[in-house]
């Protein structure tokens, strides 16, 4: 390898990696337009119909009989549940499930690419790929993916926005059974308009749609008459979390490779030349 090839190699490798990551970022920007759900906390009465519908639709075992439904945390067999929050002597019911982020942290994190953001808006787990490393659980800002702790061969499970129903053109099970229409299903763009319509037409609402800009936007949106922090919603940055990882691949990795090749290769070539000039045998 002569000097020219050496420089070509050291610059081509990192710059091609940087280029590919830029191209990837452009591809992903069209993913914002998918289906979603608008959950109106003021309408929810905490009946738990969505919990039952979810269990039936996803064929999840009901082995938690005897325990009050409201005390069940999300798990690998509980994809959604309604939690009671007491705020200033008022009770509010918050339905929790996967937020189906537009740029999901779990999808960027997943070691094997088992997590996918589909064009319908749903974030789903490919059960044939998941190795159960649980990195998605560490990455998710909403603590949604759940691990099958009691299984010998275990993977991660979570709400799929009833992906198979969406493909057939039917709304998710939980939205279809809600008796108070607290869950509105539709295109995210339309839901956002609907959310702001409700907020502007009624004084009681907090002037914030949770999920509009949180971690770059989520497909599931919430509106409420109680501040979201009091309902237990995490306060999150407005940029998407995978953008941090993108910077890592765009800048850190190419610089490590470039500096590494130049420093180590340079030192090696310099020392070899030094030894040759001295007429020593270089081994």
């Amino acid at each position, binding site marked *: 390898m002569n000097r020219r090839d050496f420089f070509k190699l050291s610059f081509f490798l990192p710059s091609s990696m940087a280029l590919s990551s830029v191209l990837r970022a452009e591809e992903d920007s069209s993913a914002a337009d998918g289906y979603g759900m608008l959950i109106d906390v003021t309408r929810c009465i905490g009946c738990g119909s969505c919990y039952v519908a979810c269990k039936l639709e996803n064929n999840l075992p009901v082995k938690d009989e005897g325990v009050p439904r409201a005390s069940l945390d999300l798990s690998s067999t509980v994809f959604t549940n309604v939690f009671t929050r007491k705020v200033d002597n008022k009770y509010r019911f918050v339905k929790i499930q996967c937020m189906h982020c537009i740029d999901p942290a779990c999808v960027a994190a997943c070691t094997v690419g088992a997590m996918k953001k589909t064009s319908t808006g749903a974030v789903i787990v490919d059960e044939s790929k998941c190795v159960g490393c649980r990195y998605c659980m560490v*990455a998710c800002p909403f603590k949604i993916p759940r691990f099958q702790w009691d299984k010998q061969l275990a993977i991660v499970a979570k709400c799929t926005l009833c992906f198979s129903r969406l493909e057939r053109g039917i709304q998710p099970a939980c939205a279809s059974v809600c008796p108070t229409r607290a869950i509105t299903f539709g295109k995210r763009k339309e839901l956002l308009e609907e959310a702001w319509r409700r907020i502007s037409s009624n004084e009681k609402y907090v002037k914030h749609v949770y999920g509009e800009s949180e971690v770059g936007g989520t497909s599931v949106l919430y509106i409420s008459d109680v501040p979201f922090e009091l309902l237990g919603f995490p306060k999150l940055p407005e940029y998407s979390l995978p953008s941090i990882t993108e910077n890592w691949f765009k800048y850190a990795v190419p610089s490590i490779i470039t500096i590494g090749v130049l420093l*180590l290769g340079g030192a090696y070539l310099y020392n070899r030349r030094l030894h040759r000039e001295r007429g020593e045998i270089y081994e």
Partner: protein
Amino acid sequence: MSETKPEALEEILAPELKIRIVNRKLAIWLTILSILIGVGVYGVYLRFTRGLSITALSNEYPWGLWISIDVLATIALGAGAFVIAALVYCFRIHELESLIRPSVLSALIAYIIGTIALIVDIGRPDRFWVTLISPNHHSIMWENVICITIYTMCLLVEFSTIARESKYVEFKWIPKIPQSLLVIAVMVGAILSTMHQSGLGGVYLISLSRISALWWTDFIPVLFWSSAIAGGLGMVIFESIISSKVLKIPLERDAINIVVKIIVFFSILYLYFRAAELIFKIGIEQMLANYLILMEILLCSIIPIFLFTIPQTRNNIMGLLVASISLMGGVIVSRWNLVVSSMITSGIYWPTWIEVGITVGLISLTLLLYTAAIKLFPVYPTVRIPVPEVIAEKEVPSLLKEARDISH
């Protein structure tokens, strides 16, 4: 029957090895290790039959003892090899040559143990290989897995040169690695090591909202990289001291003095990115109020920096030993902190006995592999059991003199 057995043994094993096997201390050491490995094997059996419910892990703490100590800390402590190999092969610092073999061996063992721990930890150990064929180019974890896999191959290439020289195991079938290929393996290894030693911390960059501001900084990768190099080199010093005591070989003072300087540099780098950032972002009171973060800073940087810069402790074996143990402890504490202490949650995590048992078993396996490897492979080139000829050479004149005296 009873007479043929020792002969056969003597044929199979070189006489030196036989002497070692009879060694009482070694026998006790190996027995203890075997018992502890047995405990670990039983733990692994329980894990595979009952799933991860035998651990204290939960949805609040998806990762715990195994990821922090057995995977992250173990791999960090194997970082000494790439630094020393790069310094010798690329920067031609010949004084460090004697440290290459022990550090490559310990790195190889560390990476094997880290991989075993990872396979025990994941939910589907039966499809761990999927990570290699199903890439996610956005995932730092995937990048780490690939870097670690290729780097382990580089370590095997480096180790094969040692293995070929073994007197007890036939490894001559391994092709001789040409020098140019070895240099490339070292360079690729150093770059990949930098990528995954920092990338293992980079894994936590995305968990921005899940971990406390005390631990989440943009510089997690730099902290991981610098503490891994300092801790890995600390382990190289620790190894040299222990092996010089056990094998009764001289300590490589010149090499250690150079390693000490490198450690001080990386410890200062760590201290700067850790403490300076914390003081500006959070304030010194809060930093001092958290004993875990204080412990991390003390063990990883302040204690070793002091012990390595003061001449009295730097030239004292006890001083070196304390400093290197502090560095290794610092790596373990910092990994534990990021994986467990940093999580913002109401729950608590404390490992179960089975988790501890498997960890103890893996540590014992590390020590057993190391003990076996230094017996089988010429890792410490100066190790020489007194061979009869050598004794004779020295003693012949005096023996002759004695014989002459008697005959007179």
